[in-house]
């Protein structure tokens, strides 16, 4: 009895104060350099990666014949219930929240050097700008949230901010990041954004919104850093290809071209790109379109419809006398192949590619268009799911050069010297005939078209095509049928497998038809239904939706 009474009396008044055992209360965080660093690390979670490549499906460079969210967006057959548009909204604002949380609290830290503090603030400002940039690319006007919100804040139900106001924040954040960020890091920090990364992103955003002068000067600033140069292994036939395999990983050391990237690490964080391109028992998730195949110039610098070097007599001929980047992007006969059996006469696996496969016997990788990608394919991991750890490049130096050339063109100040210092560096890497303003004029070509073509070809499968089409106001391109190779080029023994495949008047395979693009509606996504239901103040919807 006495014992019990003692126990009762011994019950402390704070018996019910039970603090977390495995997490840190917000108020006691934000003190040390390590704590700040970990908070910055958390902000990197939503940096885009393989998802960027998936967004190539919205453009006209690639198709996975059955439907997908991104394909529906590209084809104009979607609405505000499309799952991917809400996912983007949710993820981007989640990332912005983390950035805002850091930016509100970092000043509390005492145990940190100013240099480190600058770096961390720079990283987070960049990341916030990165997320907001995608929001305005997709949706135009969006709510501008620059502080951490609580459930009772009016801003939670606030209206959208004007696109230009959001853009102002993006540019502000990027300018701040550019000043604060170091130009390089040691290997332990590989993957963190650098000064060059912030500049490069600024150049991309400026280009998207037609701020040509900013785009040009920023691109020039990147060039003037003298840190970056185009990757080359010394062999013009493989340098471009290698950049997108393990050899070109930034961590491998030889790549000075990649400026901003999402690193992947074996066993730690991997993606599935290679398998999706050449999956050995299904249809490739990335089938290059006729439109992309036709975009590659012939080695004489002329497009296929003008060049005498172009022949479509056989499948193999299509790849002959073309811009060398074509074979390093689109799989050509003789190329390295991970897709097991191809479309040759026997039904046995091949290690080098002969012809496209149409027979759905599950012995090899099928194609919807007649083409496959080789760019971004690391053949060694095609046989396993999600075992790729090559970098996903977000901005590389090649794009900076292209940005510069395009911005100068739009400003009306593009010179042959500029082209030599930009586009012709890209062409030199692969051994393609140099671009010359004079030749273009002489052949009756349009300089702007050729600059755009250069961008499309160089950056194919890097997730930029859809955004370029939008900003070039070339939306109607998306409404065109997606086509593949000429059906008549398919071997007689394979014809039975394509008997029901539709073709156009010229005999090209039609993979996707009845596509829609309505201007101005389709230049922006609709606000996700979920979001307008949660906050009707976001309305009105984007124009046309």
């Amino acid at each position, binding site marked *: 009895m006495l014992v019990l009474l003692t126990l009762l009396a011994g019950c402390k008044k704070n018996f019910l104060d039970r603090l977390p055992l495995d997490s840190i*209360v917000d108020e006691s965080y934000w003190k040390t350099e390590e704590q700040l660093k970990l908070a910055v690390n958390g902000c990197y979670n939503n940096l885009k990666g393989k998802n960027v490549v998936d967004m190539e499906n919205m453009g006209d460079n690639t198709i996975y014949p059955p439907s997908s969210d991104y394909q529906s967006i590209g084809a104009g057959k979607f609405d505000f219930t499309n799952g991917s548009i809400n996912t983007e909204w949710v993820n981007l604002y989640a990332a912005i929240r983390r950035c805002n949380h850091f930016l509100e609290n970092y000043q509390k830290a005492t145990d940190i050097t100013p240099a480190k503090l600058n770096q961390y603030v720079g990283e987070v400002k960049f990341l916030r700008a990165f997320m907001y940039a995608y929001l305005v690319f997709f949706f135009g006007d969006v709510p501008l949230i620059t502080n951490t919100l609580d459930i009772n804040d009016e801003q939670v139900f606030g209206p959208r901010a004007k696109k230009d106001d959001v853009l102002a924040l993006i540019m502000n954040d990027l300018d701040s990041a550019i000043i604060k960020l170091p130009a390089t890091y040691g290997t332990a920090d590989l993957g963190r954004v650098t000064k060059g990364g912030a500049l490069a992103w600024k150049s991309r955003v400026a280009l998207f919104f037609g701020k040509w002068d900013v785009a040009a000067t920023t691109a020039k600033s990147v060039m003037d850093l003298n840190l970056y140069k185009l990757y080359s292994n010394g062999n013009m036939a493989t340098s471009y290809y290698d950049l997108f395999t393990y050899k070109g990983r930034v961590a491998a050391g030889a790549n000075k071209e990649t400026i901003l990237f999402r690193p992947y690490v074996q066993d730690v964080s991997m993606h599935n790109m290679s398998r999706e391109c050449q999956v050995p028992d299904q249809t490739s998730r990335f089938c290059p379109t006729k439109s992309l195949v036709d975009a590659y110039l012939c080695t004489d610098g002329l497009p296929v419809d003008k060049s005498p070097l172009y022949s479509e007599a056989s499948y193999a001929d299509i790849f002959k006398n073309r811009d060398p980047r074509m074979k390093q992007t689109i799989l050509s006969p003789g190329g390295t192949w991970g897709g097991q059996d191809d479309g040759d006469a026997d039904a046995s696996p091949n290690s080098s590619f002969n012809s496209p496969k149409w027979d759905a016997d599950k012995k090899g990788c099928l194609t919807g268009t007649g083409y496959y990608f080789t760019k971004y394919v690391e053949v060694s991991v095609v046989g396993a799911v999600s075992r790729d750890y090559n970098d996903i490049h977000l901005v590389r130096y090649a794009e900076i050069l292209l940005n510069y050339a395009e911005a100068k063109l739009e400003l009306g100040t593009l010179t042959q010297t500029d082209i030599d210092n930009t586009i012709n560096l890209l062409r030199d890497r692969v051994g393609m005939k140099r671009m010359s303003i004079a030749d273009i004029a002489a052949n009756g070509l349009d300089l702007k078209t050729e600059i755009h073509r250069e961008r499309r070809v160089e950056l194919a499968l890097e997730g930029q095509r859809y955004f370029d089409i939008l900003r070039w106001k070339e939306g109607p391109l998306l409404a065109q049928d997606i086509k593949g190779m000429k059906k008549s080029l398919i071997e007689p023994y394979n014809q039975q497998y394509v008997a029901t495949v539709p073709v156009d008047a010229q005999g090209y395979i039609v993979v996707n038809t009845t596509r829609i693009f309505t201007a101005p509606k389709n230049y922006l996504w609709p606000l996700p239904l979920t979001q307008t239901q949660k906050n*009707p103040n976001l309305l009105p919807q984007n124009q046309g939706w």
Partner: protein
Amino acid sequence: MRKILFAFTLFFTLIVHAQDKSTQKQITGKITDESNQPVEGATVLNKKTKVTTVADNTGVFRIAASVADELLITSVGYSDARITVSGQTDYSVQLVANNVSLNEVVVVGYGTQKRTSVTGAVSKVTAKVLENRPVTAVSTGLEGAVPGLTTTGAKGQPGLTHSEIRIRGVSTTNNANALVLIDGVPGDMNWINPDDIASVSVLKDAAAAAIYGSRASNGVILVTTKNGRLNDKPAITYSGYYGIQKPINLPKMLGSVEYMQMLNEAQSNVGLPKTYTDAQIETARTGADPDYFANTSWPKALIKSSAPQSNHNISVSGGSKDFNYYFSYGRLNQKGLLTGDLYNFDKNNARLKLNAVKLLDLIDVETNFGYLDRQIDQSAQDLAGDAGPIYTALTASPLTPVRFTTGTWGYGGGSSNPVTIATDGGFNKFTSRELTGNISATIHILKNLSFRSQYGIQSVNQHRKIFSRTQIYYSPQTGLPIYTAGSPNSVRDIDYVSKLQNFTNQFDYSVKLRDHHIKVLAGYQQETFLYESFSASRTNLVSDDVPVQNIGTANQTNGGDAYQYALQSLFGRVNYDYKEKYLFEFNMRYDGSSRYLQDQRWAIFPSVSAGWRFASEKFINKAIGKWLNEGKLRASYGLLGNQYGADGPAFSEWYPYLGVITSVGTMPIGGVLTTGMAQTILSNPNLRWERSKMLNIGIDLAFLKNRLTFTGDWFNKKTIDIQLKQQLPDVLGLTVPDQNVGTISSKGIELALGWKDNIGPVSYGITAMYFNTINKVIYLGNSTPVQADRIQWVGYPLDAFYGYLTDGLAQEADFTKDPSGKYLPKFPIFTADAGRVAPGDIKYRDLNKDGVITADKDRQVLGDAFPHHNYSFRLEASYKNFDLNIFLQGVAQANGYISGIGLHALDRDAAFPQEIHRDRWTPDNTDAWYPRFTYKETRNSGRLSDYWLQNAAYLRLKNIQLGYSLPRKWISRLKMEQLKFFVSGDNLFTKTKFYYAFDPEVATTSGGFYPQVKTFTFGVTVKFK
């Protein structure tokens, strides 16, 4: 195990002793009920001499008898008891109340009450309900046993057969599980040995449950385990069974030929080229290419036609004048239905109860130890998950063989081989060792004042080992790997340790002043819970056969987390009755929880109730007393609490008032796995208790010498301040915190009717039950509901099905054609569907008549997600040495929804046709059930509409058992008191209109469903005494 056997042997030696014989002599005995109260007026018959006597008001009787004479003790409201006279002259007999009797003693919060004095809604389940049934988890065995109790989510997978128990439906968006106490201490009832259970009390209304205050709003279940009896000869009981489980429903997949034809049709229908040529279809038909054009039914290949289940149980009990004991050991083994023999459930229970009474004439000491060791084995891939064997059995192509002709595992892309996953994919072994210990002392300070103190601990050590093996699929052509899964191999070990400590002190006082009877209970309780986990993993093990950390060569990682909570409570109860005719009860609990900030931490949960035993009124007794034996009206009102938020075991559940920063995953930096820290959920310092107000009115009646009994209850419950996450805009950027913003009302009725009689030598009893609960959302704060397939919307039942209305399938006549021959529908469609709608598609109804179908304006609530009109029948009959039990249970109204591959075909690559898809819309079969196939388009299949809602009503023969006990005269020489053989069957028969491939009791699934099983068992019970 060895220790247990040793202890068992020791007991056996101690308690079995020789007995001598002598001639007739006077013997005495005392008859008590389950709460040790004397049973006055019980009849004692010496069956040999036919002499009868009656027990006096202290329960004592005297009778002449010889050794081996049998005494039969009978009393109204109790089951008969028998004594075989031995050498001793002093006996004590404890009578057990009848199932439907009003004399029964009911376990209530912190005590017991006679059924006659209960004023709340309390149902009691006796051990008989669980007896001889192949119950692998106690919760499933309670289904249909109590009006108002439903079980949901039961699975057939070994070790995971338990269901969630709902008492009076659901009236919160949060944790709706009943509070379960085992011998007074919170615990998991599922894994205790069903043979150890003496009774289960279900406290349903505020009067009964308020004494558990903060955790009682979903009802309380009190499980009481068996005790030895004082002055009772030692009894050794063995019971066991062996059973066979057989799957009830399996999806019937079509063979390769029909699949290929249908795929081509589905592709043509949407303008895509056909995948298969006629020659290939012919190859599949002839079986000429068994590697690439096989014909496999994956559900058949994966799921065996039967699997065994067995149970053994042995117990020893007895007692002397001031000491009783109960000791038991039980073992259950349940094998899984999947090939590969990986699936297995083993459970070992041991229980030891030792009670000493009246030590120093003052103190009762009770000790109660339970030990549980259970192991659940399954494949490394979660059974029903998207990559698990059950789900992939529906997503694997029939063209793929189980094994290639070369003998290696078959692989056809798109989905792994489910048989490989179940056989070679590695395992997930979960072991749990749970020790529960209760020690209590009751001090009888005065004759009518006692103090009881109890300490309970539940210490749980769990371990999970997930060993993922590399599965390599080799090309039958080249012998080279074509696909590798689970690479690199890996092993992950996780230890979970938790400790729940409970300390209760209570005073009980009772006084009887002539016709006034007052009982007072006052107590203090505190509880702490601490949980910690630790995990480690490695990859690249040098052997695929030795699953230990030490042989892993790469990616060594580890992690850990921890939680804790504390509760502190004061509670009390006052009972008052006048002449046992007018009954009043007041309950109160004052609870504090560590889950809230200081200001919100404490709350009071009171209840009041009253009862009127009108049948005891003279004027009623005079008028109808001949046939009305008992009649009681009850009413109660009170407040109950719920402290659980919506997040489950996460920090937001334990510290929802704190903004905390936790470890989060992020992209790798510097080429290594990188940790980040971030806040992931918002906090709410104002969060406070969720509360339920509950009114209950009930009536208990007994007619015709207690042969006919009836209990009815009506309740109205309103849960306020529900902790829920409002649908707030995602610009917040974090998971929304719980707020006290919801109100849900719930009303229901519960009826139980019992009849017990005998026709000559056949005695029988029938119990029928009916109950129904309807809930409705009253308030959800200011947020607009997000319109998803399941919706929480003011004015409608919680989580109601929400979707489109349809007008059947479109026919040719519903279209015109444009010049190019394209179909132009005459009915409204979705804009996103433009150009794609054709005959055979579902016609959605344009509710707002604006000419287009839109997700925001053309959907409505389609139906309630909860089962309604629950009913059950239980028949018990015995004739001589035979006894028969039949138990039927059903639901008269319920909705179900099957989505994805469970129901649909060819709307994605991995959705294969089933036999029912033969009745799809084609130009030749316009009167079809299933819409036309549309390859990779989910316009018909992916939108929830009334077209797809299933009728999940059912009637099921839950259990039937037949037993035969050998006559006592045959077995008494072997010192046996009972030798009984029985056969039993569970789920033998089901009548339902539900979708053929799945089970109406799990009415919402997307296909990852372990089949429900029917079980046949044969068993034996032997009792030595």
